[in-house]
């Protein structure tokens, strides 16, 4: 993802360290971690911090953002969703074939081309990267927990309503009725996938508890 903005803080680092401990314990070659949760709950931030920590440990890794894998480009997505109805919002919006191709490239340690959205131009650029020597793949995104072959499936326990309360969303975008409907629908889909996860992160700042 190009031109995205991250807001990194201690809670992301703390969460990333908790995940790191687990990863180091059970690391196998070509290890896949997914980080899922609702919009603006800090998935990308946790992924980024975890990436930095793994690099410090000398472990080759790559971050993948599922937002790059939507079949419909960002600028056309709203119209498309309006035309197809709110039920079209969900994990079938991802291009799973392209996701599989990227995962195959990672497993085989090959030069691989993947989509990379530029948030300024709204275009889907193509990024070519070499997976040779890359041991860990961190995949973050609303529905990344659907990737069955992942070794560790992290789920962030926050809802979009919490995010709205923290004014994180309203600072970034206009929340009109249609956007609220989408957020509600994404919430339902993400929560329905929650049982697939095996590592639950709770950002409840009063307790700072991370549980398995």
């Amino acid at each position, binding site marked *: 993802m190009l031109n995205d903005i991250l807001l990194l803080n201690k809670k992301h680092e703390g969460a990333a360290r908790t995940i790191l401990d687990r990863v180091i314990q059970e690391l196998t070659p070509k290890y896949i971690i997914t980080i899922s949760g609702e919009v603006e709950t800090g998935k990308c931030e946790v992924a980024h911090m975890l990436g930095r920590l793994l690099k410090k440990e000398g472990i080759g890794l790559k971050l993948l953002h599922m937002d790059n894998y939507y079949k419909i480009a960002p600028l056309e997505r709203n119209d498309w969703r309006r035309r197809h109805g709110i039920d079209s919002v969900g994990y079938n919006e991802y291009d799973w074939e392209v996701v599989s191709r990227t995962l195959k490239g990672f497993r085989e340690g090959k030069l691989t081309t993947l989509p990379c959205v530029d948030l*300024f131009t709204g275009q889907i*650029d*193509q990024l070519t990267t070499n997976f040779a020597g890359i041991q860990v793949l961190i995949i973050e995104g609303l529905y990344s927990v659907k990737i069955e072959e992942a070794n560790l499936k992290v789920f962030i326990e926050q809802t979009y309503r919490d995010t709205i309360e923290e004014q994180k969303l309203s600072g970034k975008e206009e929340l009109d009725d249609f956007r609220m409907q989408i957020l509600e629908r994404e919430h339902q889909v993400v929560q329905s996938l929650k049982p697939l996860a095996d590592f639950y992160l709770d950002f409840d700042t009063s307790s700072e508890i991370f549980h398995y």
Partner: protein
Amino acid sequence: MLGDVLLIGEKHENAAKIILPHILKNRKNKYIIAISGESGSGKTELSHVIARMLRKEGIICKPIHIDNYYRIHPLERTEWRKAHGIETAVGLGEYDWDTIYRNIDDFRNDMISTMPCIDLVTEQVDHLTTDFKGIEMIIVDGLYAIHTEGVDLRIFIELTYHETKKAQVVRGKEPQNEYRMHVLEREHQVVQSLRDKADIFINKEYQVVTAR
């Protein structure tokens, strides 16, 4: 550039607001803006904010970071500089100008173009393929960006590394060490030698000043 950390502040927003009318006044298709300044002076932040404001004006603008265009891979750069001596090694010759001009030509000609794209988390050099069709402007930022020929608007940030030492530590980009300070001093000399090329200056208080 993937995985870069930006610290966008009010000063960047304010400077961009003053620069925006200059750009709009001279608006034309295939307009090129360049931003130079020393390490930690806020080039990428300013570039990001300007591109975002242009987007609001309906202008599609793609930021291009010249840090992607070093001929020597990030992981090998220090060793390479040590082998060649700071005076000879550090400077304009470190950029791969052929690739820079090839990408700029592709931008001018609405072509599909492939450019280097460094992943700062992994320090890998990936390649990004983008279609410049419909991209109205590019903003090139980097130490020596205003050295680029054929640029329409050149912006120079006057903060030196002496003033931004703190900013660098805060950004946590790299540990301060003596060798790094020598490099910064040499970069400082080269960047300052380009100063006269600028059309717009951002002074040490981050105020925008137009040249003559």
